């Protein structure tokens, strides 16, 4: 007997020839066997029965709908687009912001502590944005030239539009907890000139900023969505098509660069060397294209091409690439270039990038760096730093600090008691550390774990030992007489918040402070414990 058929009709939220070719609609029968794959088609006759219809949307999400196809009936399945409300919520409030140049960001990529101190000024919002900041505690601290910025009333959405010619775009977003640097995937084509960032702070106070592309940028959005949701097969298929389409038509060169990076990541770059060459030639302002071409040229057997690759790599790593994967690739190339020529130059560039590596978030798609307010504060010269001349290796200090945090701080023990308990539990370790080591350990606890050393005043021995004066010099003398690390740490805190000293006095204090550390700390420490 002939099968009784019905018709299945499918309505998709987009009609894109490229996406329709790459993102198939799968129809499975009642046993989940694949019975049809639709690409451009939107209707099919099927024997009556139950089916599962699965489509991948341009957001990267897979949506599956079970349907009942009935004899001589048309069954229509609608797949809905994601709610575009996110992109509409940003109002057109123009934010006054601090001016910044690309040189500023290039400086952040160098390995100098002073550059982190540059960020200190950004930790305060401008007066003009104070009202909005009061609500969200998030503000745009700086932006690349040519960007116009608006922010939603609740402060958690930031809209950026490139008003000038194509160039690398970036934002520095600040909160009381720190500063976030993020590149933006913008170019001058109208569909590619704007994006929205959804900004929040996580439970640890760290800033997170998700970039939402304009709906018209369908292929770029789909690429990101497919990779984010782990649909790597479809992502790679789309990247193969997109790198030709987007770079060739000059429609979305940044998404073309992202396609190239995906192909590189999945071992397919060499097969797409031509469009990479075109991308680097036509869009030299995108560092990622230069890095990709350098990767291709690094594989050449021709010395001249390898040298050209080296030059491109050096040029591209002067500033931030747009994508994190490009930074990873650049670092790998700097470390493992196939030719010895230029080795010293590559090593020097690696050294210069070490600071950026420390702050770089390799988990993001777009290049992202983050500095906590503690890190920024620690880099400001006016803050006292306990003895950096400690001979104990930093790794040992970091490990000890982690032990203290894990065993004591996380259990809510007041810090003063922690030191006492730690010293009692680990007397040999404290002896090994010496005075300067303990001071350096205190510094690690404060800098890396945000432990409040001000709580040292809770140490029960302190009131009996020190009568603190309002005058810093008096306190210095008192501590010098005794040589107690705890007293020194207290005075260091007082010193850190004091503006009483001139630079010359400060230098003298540092010298005295070190001497005091080196005079009989252990004896004094144990005497306190004995009491």
């Amino acid at each position, binding site marked *: 007997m002939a099968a009784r058929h019905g018709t299945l009709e499918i309505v998709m939220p987009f009609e894109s020839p490229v996406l329709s070719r790459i993102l198939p609609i799968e129809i499975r029968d009642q046993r*989940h066997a694949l019975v049809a794959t639709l690409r451009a088609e939107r209707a099919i006759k099927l024997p009556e029965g139950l089916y*599962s219809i699965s489509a991948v949307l341009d957001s990267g999400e*897979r949506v599956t709908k079970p*349907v009942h196809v009935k004899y001589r009936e048309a069954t229509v399945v609608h797949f809905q687009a994601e709610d575009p409300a996110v992109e509409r919520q940003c109002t057109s409030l123009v934010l006054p912001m601090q001016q910044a140049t690309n040189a500023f960001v290039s400086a952040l990529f160098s390995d100098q502590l002073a550059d982190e101190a540059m960020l200190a000024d950004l930790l305060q919002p401008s007066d003009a944005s104070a009202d909005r900041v009061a609500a969200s505690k998030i503000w745009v601290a700086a932006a690349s030239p040519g960007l116009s910025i608006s922010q939603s009333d609740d402060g958690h959405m930031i809209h950026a539009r490139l008003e000038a010619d194509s160039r690398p775009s970036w934002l520095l977003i600040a909160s009381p907890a720190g500063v976030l640097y993020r590149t933006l995937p913008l170019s001058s084509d109208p569909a590619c000139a704007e994006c929205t960032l959804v900004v929040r702070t996580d439970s640890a106070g760290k800033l997170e900023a998700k970039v939402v592309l304009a709906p018209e940028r369908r292929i770029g959005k789909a690429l990101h969505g497919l990779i984010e949701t782990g649909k790597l097969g479809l992502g790679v298929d789309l990247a193969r098509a997109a790198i030709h389409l987007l770079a060739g038509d000059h429609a979305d060169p940044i998404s073309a660069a992202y396609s190239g990076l995906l192909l590189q990541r999945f071992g397919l770059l060499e097969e797409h060397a031509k469009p990479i060459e075109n991308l680097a030639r036509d869009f030299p302002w995108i560092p990622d294209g230069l890095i990709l071409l350098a990767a291709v040229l690094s594989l050449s057997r021709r010395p001249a091409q390898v040298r050209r690759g080296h030059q491109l790599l050096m040029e591209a790593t002067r500033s931030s690439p747009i994508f994190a994967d490009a930074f*990873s690739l650049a670092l790998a190339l700097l470390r493992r270039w196939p030719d010895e020529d230029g080795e010293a130059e590559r*090593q020097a560039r690696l050294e210069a990038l070490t600071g950026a590596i420390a702050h770089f978030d390799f*988990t993001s798609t777009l290049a992202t760096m983050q500095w906590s307010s503690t890190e920024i504060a620690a880099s400001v010269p006016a803050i006292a730093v306990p003895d950096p001349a400690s001979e104990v290796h930093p790794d*040992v200090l970091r*490990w000890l600090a982690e032990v203290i945090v894990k065993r004591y701080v996380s259990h809510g023990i007041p810090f003063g008691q922690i030191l006492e308990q730690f010293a009692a539990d680990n007397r040999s370790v404290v002896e090994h550390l010496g005075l300067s080591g303990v001071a350096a350990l205190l510094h690690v606890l404060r800098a890396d774990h945000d432990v409040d050393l001000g709580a040292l005043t809770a140490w029960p021995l302190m009131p009996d030992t020190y009568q603190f004066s309002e005058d810093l010099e008096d306190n210095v003398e008192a501590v010098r007489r005794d040589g107690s690390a705890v007293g020194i740490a207290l005075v260091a805190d007082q010193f850190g918040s004091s503006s009483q000293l001139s630079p010359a006095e400060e230098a003298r204090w540092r010298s005295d402070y070190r001497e005091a550390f080196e005079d009989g700390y252990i004896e004094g420490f144990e005497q306190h414990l004995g009491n």
Partner: protein
Amino acid sequence: MIGVSYYEHFPDGKAPTELGYRWGMSQLSCAARSAAEVANWLATDYSANNPQRPLQTLRVLLSPVPGEKVPPLRGVSPRPATSANVAEALREFVDDCKRNPDDVAFVYVAGHGVQLTGHDAIVLLSDVGSPRHLAVLDGAINVTACHSAMSHADTASTQFWFVDACRLERSDIVREFATLKGAITIDLPVRQSRDELEPASRAGDRPESSFVSPIFLATSSQETAWANERERSVFCQALLESLRGAMAEPDGACPDWHVSTYSLAERLKRRVQEIAHAYGKKQHVETNGRWGKAVVHRLPPPLVRLKVNLLPSQAAPFTSASLLRNAKTPVRRIPKGWPLITDIDPGIYLLTVTAKAPFNSSVEDILDVKPPTVDRDVEVG
């Protein structure tokens, strides 16, 4: 299969050294157990269901911490995961892979990890920090470099690499050991001759699609790999769930129920996030390597746990249900009572729920019953 929980030269090991202190790490709780469980999956589930590519060799290197519950291994004796043993096992593995390009290779490495870029994964072995070593990375394996070196024409054409380790940046290591001297790796094969800017395949003359070698990294850069202490790692849990059928289905290329590289990547990414999130942690799987579609594992259609909840629950005494496969064939022996819980074959079913007075209601729902579980609410009130 390599699993390193115990590090002899770390501060809490039996023979701490200054170098061991420098790593700033402690013993792990379940890396060896995780590797042993994956090894047992290969020796049992995989072997039973993949006769066309049967398991030929299996090397297991484990260094458990005292008290770690490592399951007995099936058909193989483990060796300690020291650098010498790992180097020897790697040599044997490379030789085995050269025998037949149609072979399949699995590599799973669990332990402490470090990274230098977004794509690196270096795993520390049990004797890292030994005073006998010359370089700080003696006693480590550069897994991504080994993986890259195995991407060529004269080796197994289908490879699956899994790195279950933290990928924490150590800037001091980066500065001092940028060239990674000391870490175990495999020499790159001599490059195929060709000119640049021409289509070429790293896997020689083999068609592009026939060489597949993804590498699944348990974490993104600078992330910690989490574990349920003394049980198994989050990544291992998600991997075994996926391989046991949680994301299996037939498709046009392979009508058998199977786990493919595509479905494994999708499932692992989502599931690791879910499990880590349940513990209040973040962990993101990253996938690199030579990409393509390949069958990882064939298996019989897995039974699916179906749970139908009745709303309101007071309707239970008055309500019955029927389940028709393809809207035609009744499913027999549906348990009575609510919620309705039953293990059934995957497929598409018509569920009919009928409630008598005082509820007087009948509800039809189409259920797409796919692994691993389906949970559905039906309202009759």
